[in-house]
């Protein structure tokens, strides 16, 4: 460069910046060897990985950058009565593996125990600029902090345990720009469901998504986690949001976050990660926030979703033969009629919980809806806080009492009915309004019918016994 000419750096996305800071090794015709700053571990996808290490006489390279908990299998009542011996063995195996390989573990009795994607941020393990993996597809949640976080399979879990790295092809980047502001009582959950409904379940495949725009900036950290959590439901392994003051305020004072001067230095570094003005993305999609209404899924994947004021589609609405067939199959599975208003659908179960919507603010908003009311006599409703910490904080505010007075069950922390690996199962043919992330066939129980909604929509469905627009409900209760 000639003397006196200032070099204008090419604007970069946060994805580029984090990636470039983590490349350990590059060679032609190979993916990059990427350093992983943090691996989160749970009982379901790790036993075969630890066994693999044992078989080859390998160790965990950085137990200090590994953190384990038990969430998928754990009972949410009668904590120590695990009826299924296979579940019990899986949990004991995690305990044993963590002892053998010196991995810190928040086990079932630990005050930090909870859903892995709730406790990572809570403890301040999740930080901007980190590469974070976990044998769980909802690892995208941690992207809310401006981390590059993605789900991996068990072979990759083993690879990270042994080497603290992964071979990764550089992903394409996509800007999901949310213009304008969300209307009152329209939530982050409604927004992400509307995005998936608009662009489909695979628009993010092969991409890391960055959520940008005014509506995203206005979200709290817990709302951002809800949005990033469901990136995988659009096919994107990772979804993230550039860090800002909201991020730093959330992190300040958390256990694993630097303090004092070190925190200030960290904030400087974190601030530098935000995508530069004018950075180029491989693709961009846009959505107007004020178009989004409270959403309810009607079908068997998260894109099969309509506003609460809407009608269930008919097979004729499909664009192709395959589409029509898919709608027909979904209607049959869900026990719904074509063109039926979604507000006419009654529910048997309400589940408030999961890594999507089980944080304190989710519970507060749901509690506000049920306060002083009763769960409909035909509905069985439960709240499963995302972590022991959330549970304690909610109890300190009396939220547990609000829920139990209304007729909800108040449970211990875990994944619970989101995937029904423990005893929290929706029986065949029954219908559940759920704040979780997947309405796949059989997800909440064989032949169970799942409708994904926001916590306040789930709370209103619990009281009414059917889907109602929580907005009119909040202003003029029936």
């Amino acid at each position, binding site marked *: 460069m000639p003397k006196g000419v200032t070099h204008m750096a090419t604007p970069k996305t946060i994805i580029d910046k984090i990636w470039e800071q983590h490349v*350990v*090794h590059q060679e032609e*015709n*190979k*993916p990059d*060897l990427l*350093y992983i*700053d943090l691996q989160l571990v749970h009982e*379901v*996808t790790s*036993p*075969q990985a630890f*066994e693999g290490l044992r078989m*080859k006489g390998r160790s965990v*390279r950085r137990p200090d950058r590994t953190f384990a908990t038990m969430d998928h299998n754990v009972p949410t009542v009668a904590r120590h009565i695990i009826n299924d011996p*296979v579940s019990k*063995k*899986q949990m004991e*195996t995690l305990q044993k593996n963590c002892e053998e390989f010196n991995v810190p573990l928040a086990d079932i009795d630990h005050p930090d125990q909870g859903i892995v994607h709730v406790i990572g941020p809570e403890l301040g393990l999740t930080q901007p*600029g980190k590469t974070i993996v976990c*044998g*769980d*597809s909802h690892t995208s949640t941690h992207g809310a902090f401006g981390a590059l976080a993605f*789900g*991996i*399979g068990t*072979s*990759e879990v*083993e*690879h990270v345990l*042994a*080497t*603290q*790295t992964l*071979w990764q*092809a550089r992903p394409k980047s996509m800007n999901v720009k949310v213009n304008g502001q969300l209307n009152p009582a329209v939530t982050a959950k409604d927004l992400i469901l509307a995005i998936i409904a608009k662009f489909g*379940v*695979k628009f993010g*495949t092969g991409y890391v998504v960055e959520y940008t725009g005014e509506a995203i900036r206005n979200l709290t950290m817990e709302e951002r986690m809800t949005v990033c959590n469901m990136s*995988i*439901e659009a*096919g994107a*392994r990772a979804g993230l949001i550039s860090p800002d003051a909201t991020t730093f305020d959330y992190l300040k004072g958390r256990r694993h976050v630097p303090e004092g001067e070190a925190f200030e*230095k960290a904030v*400087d*570094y974190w601030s530098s990660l935000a995508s530069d003005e004018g950075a180029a993305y491989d693709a961009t999609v846009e959505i107007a926030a004020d178009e989004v209404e409270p959403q309810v899924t009607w079908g068997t*994947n998260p894109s099969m979703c309509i506003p609460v004021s809407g009608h269930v589609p008919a097979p004729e609405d499909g664009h192709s033969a*395959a589409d029509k067939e*898919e709608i027909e*199959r979904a209607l049959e599975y869900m026990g719904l009629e074509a063109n039926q208003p979604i507000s006419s659908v009654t529910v048997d179960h309400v589940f408030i919980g999961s890594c999507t919507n089980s944080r304190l603010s989710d519970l507060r908003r749901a509690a506000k809806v049920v306060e002083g009311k009763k769960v409909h006599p035909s509905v069985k409703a439960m709240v499963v806080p995302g972590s022991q910490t959330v549970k304690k904080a909610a109890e300190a505010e009396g939220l547990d009492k609000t829920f139990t007075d209304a007729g909800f069950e108040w449970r211990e922390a875990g994944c619970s009915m989101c*995937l*029904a*690996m423990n005893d929290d199962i929706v029986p065949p043919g029954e219908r559940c309004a759920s704040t979780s992330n*997947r309405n*796949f*066939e*059989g*997800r909440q129980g*064989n*032949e169970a019918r799942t409708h994904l909604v926001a916590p306040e929509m789930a709370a209103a469905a619990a009281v009414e016994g059917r889907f109602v627009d929580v907005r009119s409900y909040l202003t003029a209760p029936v």
Partner: protein
Amino acid sequence: MEPVKHHTGLVYPLNRSNIDTDQIIPKQFLKRIERQGFGQFLFYNWRYDNEGNPKQNFSLNDPAYEGASILVAGENFGCGSSREHAPWALQDFGFKVIIAPSFADIFYNNCVKNGILPVQLPEEQTSELVKKAESGNYNLSADLKNQVVYDDTGFEASFEIVNYLKEMLLNGWDEIAVTLTHQDKIDAFEQAQEKTTSI
């Protein structure tokens, strides 16, 4: 991992889009701590009724497809949960090659790590294969080295696969052993990282 080079086998068509890993292996079977023995649970809720009896209307229960080792499915195959139990179940059941118009990212990777060959072909070609396979007596060959699938009646289609993954399948690499040859670089990366405030 066993190397994967060339495979010929009976084709089973499952012409649905967005088959998620919850369908491939339902969660009640994820509690085991082994890698083996998941084949019996493959597509369990589609194959069996609530009493555990085989459902007659699900084609994988049709004796015509017994011994099938190539699966042809609709787009976005393997979406949803990252559970590696899905490829373990497919492999244990006997599937060695999976053909679809598109795959979910995590599932695709998980296949390769287990020696299952995922073949991405345009929808017109997968539809043609589905039609041929619906007869119940259709064999196909997959040649990874030349990146081509073909039958003995003139069907031939080439497919793309990232070179690194191709080499891994052809050689049956232990990826961790490969990575550990770069241990000095990982050490150096960590030392450099500790000097900055990035963590």
